[in-house]
C-alpha cells in the first residue's frame, strides 16, 4: 500500500498525484468499474473505508471518502491517497474544512472516473431526499442505512416520501438471505397464507420492511413482533390449509425451516458484514422496483 498526503490542496492536484502514483506502481486504471463516494464523519470513517475496500475486491473502484470537519475553520482541503498493491482500486480520503464542507460536490466531481457509474453511500446520517443532495445528484445509485438512525423504523418508513429510482437502503440489503430462503420455501406449493408475524429485536427497520414485503406479496396481514434478538429472529406464517410455515433463527447464524407435514431443516443464515452488503449493492446498479413497492406499501400501511 502506497499512501500519500496532500494538505491544503485542490482536486486537480489530487488527480495528477493519483496518475503519478499509478504509473509508479505500473498499473493503469483501466480495470476500475465504478466510483464509490462514501460520505461519513471522522468517527465512522475507519469502518466504512474498510467495508468499501473489501467490497472493491469484487468491484474494483475508486473510493472517494468525504469527511466533513470543522465548518468554522478557514476553508481547506486535505487529501490522503492510498493506492494499494493488495486491492485493485484506489482510495482517496478527503477532509473538508470551513465553507467547503457545504460544497463537497465541487471536489468530487472532477475526481469521478469518466463514463462509469457513480454510487454514493451514507454509512451514517443521510439526507432526507438523497437524490436531491448535492453529492447524491452526481450518483446513479444512492445507498442509505436506516439502522444508523436513532429511530430506524421511523427512518425506513419515511424513505418512501423521498424515494427516487436508484435509491436503496442497507436495511433492505440485509434481508436478501431471508427473502431468498422464504422464496425457496414457497417454490413448493404452500397455498394461501392467512396471516403472519415477523419477530426481531425492538425497533428493527429490516423487520418492518420484511413484514411489508411479505404482506404485499402474500396479500395477508403481517405483524411485527418483538423478541430478544439478535436482529431478526423469526418469520411465522399461518397457512390457510392449517399449520405454520416458520423460519426461526436464534443465534444469528443457523436457522430452522419448518412446515406442516415435513421434517424440520436447518440452514445457514448468517448475518453478513457490511462489506458483503455493499458488494451486493454494487452488483446491480439498476433501480430496485421491489424495494420501491415494499417501501410504498409500508408508508401506506402506517398512514
Amino acid at each position: 500500500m502506497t499512501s500519500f498526503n496532500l494538505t491544503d490542496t485542490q482536486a486537480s492536484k489530487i488527480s495528477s498525484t493519483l496518475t503519478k502514483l499509478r504509473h509508479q506502481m505500473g498499473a493503469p486504471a483501466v480495470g476500475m468499474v465504478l466510483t464509490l463516494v462514501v460520505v461519513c464523519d471522522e468517527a465512522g470513517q475507519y469502518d466504512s473505508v474498510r467495508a468499501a475496500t473489501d467490497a472493491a475486491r469484487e468491484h474494483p473502484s475508486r473510493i472517494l471518502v468525504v469527511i466533513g470537519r470543522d465548518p468554522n475553520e478557514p476553508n481547506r482541503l486535505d487529501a490522503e491517497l492510498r493506492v494499494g498493491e493488495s486491492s485493485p482500486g484506489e482510495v482517496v480520503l478527503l477532509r473538508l474544512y470551513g465553507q467547503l464542507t457545504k460544497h463537497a460536490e465541487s471536489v468530487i466531481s472532477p475526481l469521478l472516473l469518466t463514463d462509469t457509474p457513480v454510487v454514493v453511500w451514507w454509512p451514517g446520517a443521510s439526507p432526507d431526499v438523497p437524490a436531491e443532495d448535492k453529492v447524491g445528484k452526481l450518483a446513479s445509485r444512492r445507498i442509505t442505512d436506516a439502522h444508523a438512525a436513532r429511530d430506524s423504523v421511523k427512518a425506513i418508513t419515511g424513505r418512501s416520501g423521498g424515494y427516487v429510482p436508484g435509491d436503496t437502503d442497507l436495511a433492505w440489503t440485509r434481508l436478501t438471505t431471508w427473502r431468498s430462503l422464504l422464496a425457496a420455501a414457497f417454490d413448493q406449493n404452500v397455498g394461501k397464507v392467512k396471516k403472519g408475524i415477523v419477530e426481531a429485536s425492538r425497533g428493527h427497520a429490516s423487520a418492518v420492511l420484511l413484514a411489508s414485503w411479505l404482506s404485499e406479496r402474500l396479500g395477508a396481514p403481517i405483524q411485527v413482533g418483538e423478541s430478544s434478538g439478535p436482529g431478526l429472529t423469526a418469520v411465522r406464517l399461518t397457512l390457510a390449509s392449517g399449520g405454520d410455515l416458520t423460519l426461526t433463527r436464534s443465534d444469528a447464524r443457523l436457522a430452522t425451516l419448518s412446515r406442516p407435514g415435513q421434517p424440520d431443516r436447518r440452514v445457514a443464515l448468517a448475518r453478513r458484514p457490511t462489506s458483503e452488503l455493499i458488494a451486493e449493492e454494487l452488483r446491480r446498479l439498476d433501480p430496485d422496483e421491489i424495494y420501491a413497492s415494499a417501501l410504498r406499501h409500508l408508508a401506506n400501511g402506517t398512514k
Partner: protein
Amino acid sequence: MARNTGGKAEAAIAEEAHTAAAAVAATATTAEAFENNPLRDPRDKRLPRVAGPCVLVLFGVTGDLAKRKLLPAIYDLGNRGLLPPGFSLVGFARRDWAHEDFAQVTYEAVKQYARTPFRDEVWKQICEGIHFCPGEFHDEGAFDVLAMMLKEIDETRGTGGNYAFYLSVPPKFFPTVVEQLKRTGLAQAPEGSWRRVVIEKPFGHDLKSAQELNAITSAVFPESSVFRIDHYLGKETVQNILALRFANTLYEPIWNRGYVDHVQITMAEDIGIGSRAGYYDGIGAARDVIQNHLLQLLALVAMEDPTSFDAHSLRREKEKVLKAVRLPDDLGLGTTRGQYTAGWQGGESVIGYLEEQGIPADSMTDTYAAIRLEVANRRWAGVPFYLRAGKRLGRRVTEVAVVFERAPHLPFSKDDTEILGQNALVIRVQPDEGITVRFGSKVPGTAMEVRDVSMDFAYGESFMESSPEAYERLLLDVLIGDPPLFPHQREVELSWEILDPIEDYWATHGRPEGYPAGTWGPPSADAMLARDGRVWRRL
C-alpha cells in the same frame, strides 16, 4: 465431405419433437416458479436461483475429481446460499465407511480446495445431509440399500423424491450403474419429482462408441434428464464469448470473412500425462481435448446469434456450425500430430511420452494435435480455423485468437510499418481470464513508426476477485434443471463425425512426429501454417 445423414435426420426430428416438449416442461418450471410463487418476481434480481429440495448421489467419491472439484463446489454453493434447505449428499463407493467417515473426507476436501472461506454454520447445514452407501457397482444388495436410504432421506429431510445421479466413474461402469438404477426403480421419477443423471467426458472415443454409450443412458433416462458435463462450458470466460459477441455492436460487423483472416484455438498444457497413462494411451490429445473443448469453443465463436438463450436455441445454432465444419481435402497436409520426447520444461528435466510409466514403447498416441478446419457458410467461407492441443508444451494456456486481415492500404512507408503485425482479438480462457485486443500504435518520437500494442481486459480485475468455479455453475444448473450449458448428444456425435476421419487417417499413416518437451509442438505444425503463409501465435 459428404455425410450420411438420411436416417439420422428422421431420428433427429423425432427426438427434436420430444426434446421440444421436454424443454417446454423444463421452462415451465421456471416460469411457473414465478407464477405460482407469490414471493418471486422477475424484477427481483437480488434473489438468486436456488435449487429445489433434492439429493445428489455421487458415484466415485474417492476419485480425484470429487475431492478437488465436486465436494468443494457443493460447499461453495452452500456458502453462497444456493443450496436448498434439506439438500442431501449421498456418496457411493467401495469403501467400508460410515456416514461420518464420508463427512470427514468431505470436510477435508472442503477445507483444502473450497474457493470461499470456511464457515461453521454452512458446514453444519451440509454435514447434516451427508450420507454414505458402501458397495460395489455390480452388487444388487448395495443398490437396494441405496434405494432404501434415499427413501428414508425423503422422509427425514423432505427432499421429495428429487435425485441427481452424478457418475464420476470410468465409462466402462456406466452400463452397470445405469442398469442398477433402472432395476431399483431409481431412474423412474414418480409424478411431481425428477431424476437426472450427470455424466462426464469422455463421451466415447469415436462416433460408434459415443452412440453405444448414449444408447445405454437413453434406454433408461430421457435425453432431457441427461446432463453431459463439459466443464469448459461452465467457465465464465467461455460464457462471456456469447456476451462479447451478442451484447455488443463493436465486434459483430467485423466478425466475418470480410475482416477475419483466420482463427487460432489453442489449449496448451505444460504437464505430461502424469498418472493418467491407462486412460490417455490410445486416446490422445485430439480425442481428449479437441473433440469436446476446442470444437465447443469453435462453435461458440463461429455460431450465428441464437433466437434466445434457452437450451434449445443455443444448441441448435451450435449444431448448425458443427454441421458446416469442413475437413481439409488432404488430411496429410491439413492435420498434424506429435508426441513429446525427453526435454526441459520450465527448468525441469522431464521424460518423453514413451518413457512414461505404463506406456508401451511403440505407442502411436498423439500428445499434440493440430488441425485446420473450415466452416462452410456465408459468414466464414475460406477462413481457416486452426485448432491445436498438446501436452508438455511451453506453458499452460487456453485461448481463442481471432486474427484480422491487414489494412488494405497503409499510407505509411514500408519501413515505418515493418514491425506492425495483424490486429487480433484474443479471448483468454485460462489462466488469467480476459480479453486482449492487439492493434498498431505510433511509437513516440519524431518518426512515424507503427508498432503492435495490446489493450487488456482482465476478468478478475473488473469483476469478482475469484469468479465461481465451472463446477459450481454446472452443479447448480443440474439441480435446477437448466440445460443450456450442457452439450446435447447430437453435438457430441457431430464432433465425432469431424474427428473420426482424421483419426482414421492417422491410424494408417505413419507415426506422430516427436517434439522435445517444453517446446511448442513438432515442426510439421509450423509447416502446416507456413503453407498458408501464417504462423502460430507465440504464447
